[in-house]
């Protein structure tokens, strides 16, 4: 299982939000293509790691990018970072496919942008800072924790299945993940007290 690479060219959360805004307000295809070049290879890697074949992965990448174009006006940079938004669209596309022809499509922003309680950023600036911090925090996790986070987001495996496969005690898997999530959440809410 290989570690993920950080992309060689990385756009800042602020730049990403600017691009989505230009897509929304100006239907700017240049901005869209910049987003495409940033996200398409990552999304493809993401879906491939979830076990999809080449063609299926690319079909989904296309779906997600077209959704991004269509829904750009719904994106609110004061509510969520672009990464969160795109991740949510990518996730919901999987769920939609499962429910296809049986259920109405999930909103890309539901419950993503539904009002929620608890500590939350109240400005685009804070959101972008928060997105940058969580990216950095993920990069800094010890490999044993980072690997468990990746498995949690890519694979259909309960903690006990992970423990069995990695030949670790269940308690170790749980405590490593708890520690990792704690660090990532503290990075999201730098000033909020999330202990306990």
């Amino acid at each position, binding site marked *: 299982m*290989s570690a*993920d*690479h950080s*992309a060689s060219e*990385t756009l800042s959360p602020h730049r990403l939000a600017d691009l989505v805004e230009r897509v929304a307000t100006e239907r700017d295809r240049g901005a869209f*293509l910049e987003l*495409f070049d940033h996200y*398409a*290879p*990552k999304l*493809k*890697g*993401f879906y491939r790691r979830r076990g*999809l074949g080449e063609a*299926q*992965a*690319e079909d989904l*990448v296309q779906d997600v990018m*077209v959704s991004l*174009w*269509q829904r750009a006006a719904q994106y609110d940079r004061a509510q*969520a*970072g*672009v*990464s*969160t*938004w795109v*991740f*949510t669209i*990518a*996730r*919901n596309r*999987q769920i939609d*496919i*499962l429910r296809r022809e049986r*259920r*109405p*499509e*999930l*909103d890309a922003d539901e*419950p993503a942008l539904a009002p*929620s*309680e*608890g500590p939350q950023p109240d400005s685009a600036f804070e959101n972008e800072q928060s*997105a940058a911090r*969580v*990216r950095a925090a*993920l990069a800094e996790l010890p490999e044993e924790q980072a690997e468990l986070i*990746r498995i*949690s*987001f*890519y694979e*259909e495996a*309960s903690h*006990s299945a992970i423990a*069995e496969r990695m030949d670790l005690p269940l308690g170790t898997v749980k405590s490593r*993940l*708890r520690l990792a999530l704690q660090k*990532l*959440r503290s990075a999201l809410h730098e000033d909020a007290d999330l202990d306990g």
Partner: protein
Amino acid sequence: MNPVHHLSDELLTAFAAGLLAEPLVLLAETHLALCGPCRARERDLRAIGGAVLERAAAESVGTDLRGRVLAALDAADGAPARPCAREAGAGGDVPRPLARYVGARFDQLKWRSRGPVSEIRLMPEQEGWVTRLLKIRPGATMPDHTHEGLEATVVIRGAFSDCTGRYGPGDVALVHGDLDHSPVAEEDEVCICLAVTDAPLRLTGSFGRFLNPFVRL
């Protein structure tokens, strides 16, 4: 009042990642509809998912994908957006995620009565899962039952108690393995809950047959 019994990090993370089977997706969505603090937790997990996506090992896409996507934008601009779930299930008393399956109003549901407990079976096509909306008469006891796998219940209205505690609106009860329990509805109100079991076909140590939906494409 917020629920007391929440989704575990394990289940909520799998939900946020889109890695749960559909019956558990519905259970999680129903809890989230009734629990503000968990909506905030779930949002944090998606922000973490966003960071995981940003760090995903990039794979180069085919040279024609750009062109295909640009062509699809033209088609998308000419077509109305697909209908969304936003309106579905609005205007009733059934929590919206559940309303997508059974309609928006509790008084229009078609219950199948089984003594003190009535039920509506959902997602019968989901092999290996039993997903039911249950209505328990005030003060009634669910028959003793044990199960080999996981039983996850979220209360929508009213409350019940069993040997593990009291569960009111939004509360999630998770029962693993062969715990013998008999939930009792409270005296003053009908209890409605969504119950998901994955026995007897449950695979050990897994969330069940998640869904790799793509396998079926």
